[in-house]
């Protein structure tokens, strides 16, 4: 007994829950057999029990691809995913059920992620039913409780997904992901479809679950204030690569990568007088093609500080300050 509980404690505190090593994913591209979309390139990070890693970056930079490789909706082209020390990179789909119990995902697009032919109650109950270890009474009760925790009422239970507003659908997706009380939840833009008050409710809810159950989150979002608020560490991606990673709030006060700096400058400020004067700030230029990524640093085509070296030599992710990594030649 005793040894077991100490083991559990040790597990909670420091053993990594999720280890991602050199994760890479290439999609086949149109127009030629050998052309590929370099969607995710050699991404590595570690997430401990009960912690939150925020992931931000340009639209199309590979955040969803990363999450989808981790939950094995996609099979990574290279690299490894370890969950609780177990290598799950190549487990066959039919043996993924116990893995799903530990790891769930909230999908980015609340419109297509939910089955249109199922009622809200059935959508949320589905993961419970798949595990086959709950009675129908238990299931009903758990579904009801979870829906009320995400701010939906009994009245919504019999509705179909298309009868809900965007934000209501997103909360159904969150309820579904949390109902098994997994150890890890990959949240792909869980709040962008919600109004700010419900965003705050959902964030408080995610934090409560984290404190109660020691959940860990991979939190993908565009709202940098929210990401800062929820995350213990934050990673920034650009064109499939991790370009900056920082434990603690350093990333916001001392961004090292020029892309991160541009991103922070683009944040809209919720004050009309300031916002109007600030419209010229932020990054400009077009994103390069993920089919033919630029040589050297992939950001050099838009970087205001790019030097000759940046155009030929890819920078490596290195620890520039304690707990703060970046991939830029100038740091």
């Amino acid at each position: 007994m005793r040894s077991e509980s100490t083991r559990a404690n040790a597990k909670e505190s420091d053993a990594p829950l999720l280890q991602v090593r050199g994760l890479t994913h290439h999609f086949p591209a149109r127009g030629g057999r050998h052309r590929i979309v370099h969607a995710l390139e050699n991404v590595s990070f570690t997430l401990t029990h009960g912690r939150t890693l925020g992931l931000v970056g340009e639209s199309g930079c590979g955040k969803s691809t990363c999450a989808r490789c981790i939950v094995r909706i996609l099979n990574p082209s290279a690299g490894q995913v370890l969950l609780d020390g177990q290598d799950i990179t190549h487990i066959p789909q039919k043996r993924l059920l116990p893995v799903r119990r530990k790891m769930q995902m909230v999908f980015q697009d609340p419109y297509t992620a939910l089955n249109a032919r199922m009622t809200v109650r059935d959508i949320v109950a589905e993961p419970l039913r798949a595990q086959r270890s709950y009675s129908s009474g238990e299931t009903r009760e758990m579904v009801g409780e979870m829906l009320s925790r995400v701010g939906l009422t009994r009245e919504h239970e019999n509705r179909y997904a298309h009868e809900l507003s965007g934000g209501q659908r997103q909360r159904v997706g969150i309820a579904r992901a949390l109902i098994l009380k997994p150890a890890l939840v990959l949240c792909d833009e869980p709040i962008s479809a919600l109004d700010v008050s419900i965003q705050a409710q959902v964030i408080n809810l995610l934090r409560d679950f984290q404190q109660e159950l020691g959940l860990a989150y991979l939190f993908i979002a565009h709202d940098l204030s929210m990401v800062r608020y929820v995350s213990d560490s934050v990673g920034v991606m650009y064109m499939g690569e991790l370009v900056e990673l920082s434990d603690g709030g350093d990333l916001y006060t001392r961004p090292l990568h020029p892309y991160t700096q541009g991103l922070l400058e683009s944040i809209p400020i919720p004050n009309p007088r300031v916002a109007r004067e600030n419209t010229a700030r932020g990054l400009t230029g077009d994103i390069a093609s993920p089919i033919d990524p630029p040589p050297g640093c992939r950001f050099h085509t838009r970087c205001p500080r790019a030097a000759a070296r940046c155009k030929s030599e890819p920078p490596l992710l290195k620890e520039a300050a304690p707990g703060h990594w970046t991939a830029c030649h100038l740091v």
Partner: protein
Amino acid sequence: MTMQYKNYDVSHNPGGDEPLLTIRNLRTSFFTGAGEIAAVRGVSLTVRRGECLGVVGESGSGKSVTFLSALRLLAPAGRVMGGEIRFQGRDLLNMRLKEMREVRGARIAMIFQDPLSSLNPLIPIGKQVDEMLWAHEKNLTARQRKDKTLELLTKAHIPEAERRYGSYPHEFSGGMRQRVMIAMALACKPDLLVADEPTTALDVSIQNQILRLIKSLQSEMGMGVAFITHDLGVIAQMCTRVSVLYGGLVMEDAAADDLFDRPLHPYTEGLLTSMPSLMQDRSIRLSPIPGSPPDMSAPPSGCPFAPRCAHARNICVSQMPPTYTYADGRQSRCWLHSHDAPAFDNPYRDIRGTAVPDEEAL
């Protein structure tokens, strides 16, 4: 004195200032297995030429349904129960369907909240934009249409438009699909753009570029924009005026500056305080408005916000508050503006002179 008067005159542009879009007292319901859902219960708002109206509000408050009603694109279960919608002086609700289609393509464009379900999964995206152009500019040659398509995709920041022309929607990231929608909406140079959460799937830097693009079209072509968003930062950057919806009603209508300076409705105030700032202390819990929105299949007879409102009194629960209008044009639907409201613990009464309640409610 005269100068001031003149200024006032110019900015108000009397006569030439008939709004582009006027929605008056719109009521829309859905009829489902669970009964009638009163999604929109009397919404009035206007969008002027060259103006960007921000539409914010609780999720499920009827923002999308209001504009889908105006474009007559409601789901089959939805029905407009009452009200009036005028666009460039024409009655949209009673227009023949054929005419409505023309207006929809050529004069009004909408960027939908759900990009994936509004793109056809079986058709390459370039082809979809091309078809959109074909429908509206029949005199273009195939070559011209393709060039124009590529130009539009590039303008909407799709990298390498030429190569991506033949890609299918599922091969695009969430944000890229949204940008395709933007390209399609701008294809026909509309007079009115209804943008329903057009940038939610975009990162802040692309968002910033798209917002600038919409803004430049707005000022170059005098396009009117109705911008539905949850992001108050985006509202601050884009909009001159804001309508705040809750429970299928407009709760507050104000110039953006005024709204951020001092909300006049308890719900708006709740929204503004829910938002974390960039330097929010991580150990402090966020303070959302407690409780949940009303059940629209049995809408409350009183103020829909009453169960969650810190200022609610008996009358709020039993009777619908009228919309009060202040001398400067600001409007707020809340009993606290009534001259019968108590002065004690009431931050909203008499701060801006006397407010006039609308007649409909009297």
